[in-house]
């Protein structure tokens, strides 16, 4: 038997990356600005989406794509808050990938959307490897998870453009060294926009909403946004 070595040198995530580029082009062409929310389970992704939808739906037309392993609970919450919501069940997969977002986009009328928020599956490891084609990624950390997460999950902190630290109402009850946490985060991602909030008390939400509106107006169809 003749054997032969065939050079390949191809990125293993290449196929996903190509689909992500397609999604990106499609969102760009439609003038939709998009955010990918990543976090551990229970950090408060859906709560932050609810708050964002409630406060911004007078100004922006919002849609939410919710990735969940099996249920539609999160999409129902986003819809109840007033967004157009699409559910993706990953059937056990620990992350969304570009193909899943592509089929969710098929269900939306992109021409009437200003801001699309994608809630990734709660997981700090896997989603970071699969680009979706969204414009920016937001990591939602939360106080009860502990201040060592940047050190343990560097991949999650490296590829994001904003960091929301949720549940700051719990700071008095939890050992959470904000300085240690932020030192780790900025080692991994210098200059990262960092916004501490509480979705429960509403603390810090103004700064978050301002960041979102700023992003949409500089990157999306900014001229059409009504400021109120």
């Amino acid at each position, binding site marked *: 038997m003749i054997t032969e070595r*065939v*050079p*390949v040198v191809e990125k293993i*995530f290449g196929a996903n990356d190509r689909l992500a580029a397609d999604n990106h082009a499609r969102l760009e062409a439609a003038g939709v600005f998009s955010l990918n929310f990543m976090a551990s389970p229970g950090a408060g992704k859906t709560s932050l989406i609810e708050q964002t939808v409630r406060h911004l739906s007078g100004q922006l037309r919002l849609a939410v794509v919710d990735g969940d392993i099996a249920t539609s609970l999160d999409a129902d919450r986003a819809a109840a808050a007033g967004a157009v919501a699409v559910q993706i069940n990953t059937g056990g997969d620990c992350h969304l990938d570009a193909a899943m977002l592509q089929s969710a986009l098929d269900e939306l009328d992109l021409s009437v959307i200003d801001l699309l928020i994608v809630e990734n599956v709660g997981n700090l490891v*896997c989603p970071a*490897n699969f680009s979706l084609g969204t414009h920016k990624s937001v990591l939602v950390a939360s106080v009860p998870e502990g201040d060592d997460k940047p050190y343990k999950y560097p991949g999650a902190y490296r590829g994001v453009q904003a960091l929301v630290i949720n549940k700051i109402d719990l700071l008095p009850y939890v050992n959470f060294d904000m300085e240690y946490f932020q030192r780790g985060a900025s080692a991994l991602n210098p200059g990262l926009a960092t916004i501490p909030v509480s979705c429960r008390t509403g603390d810090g939400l103004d700064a978050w909403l301002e960041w979102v509106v700023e992003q949409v107006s500089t990157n999306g169809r900014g001229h059409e946004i009504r400021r109120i």
Partner: protein
Amino acid sequence: MHELSVTESILEIALRHGRKAGAAAITDVFLVIGELSTIVDESVQFYWDMITEDTPAAGSRLHFQRIPGRLSCRTCGYSYSPREDLPCPACGSIDIDILAGEEFYLEAIEIAETRETEKQTT
């Protein structure tokens, strides 16, 4: 973990390049994986044996080349391997570059050529 979808991507790439090269069978697959990537070799191997069953890659061996993580400090230029603490061990700076350890690609395959090709060449 997503080792199953990763393994499917590896198989798709290997089969595509195998077909192009006129392979009757793929015998070996060489992967390059950075230490900082979160892939677990054993589970890739486990899924590989499962999903290659009725393909030209059945029975093939996976080879993993691990690239050690390498960081470099933008403040003092010191270069080091990542430990528990990420800041530069020499000067404490947090402004660091990742030089190596994030690789994740299929480098090469080894194939057995098709019978026709084999006849022509022997």
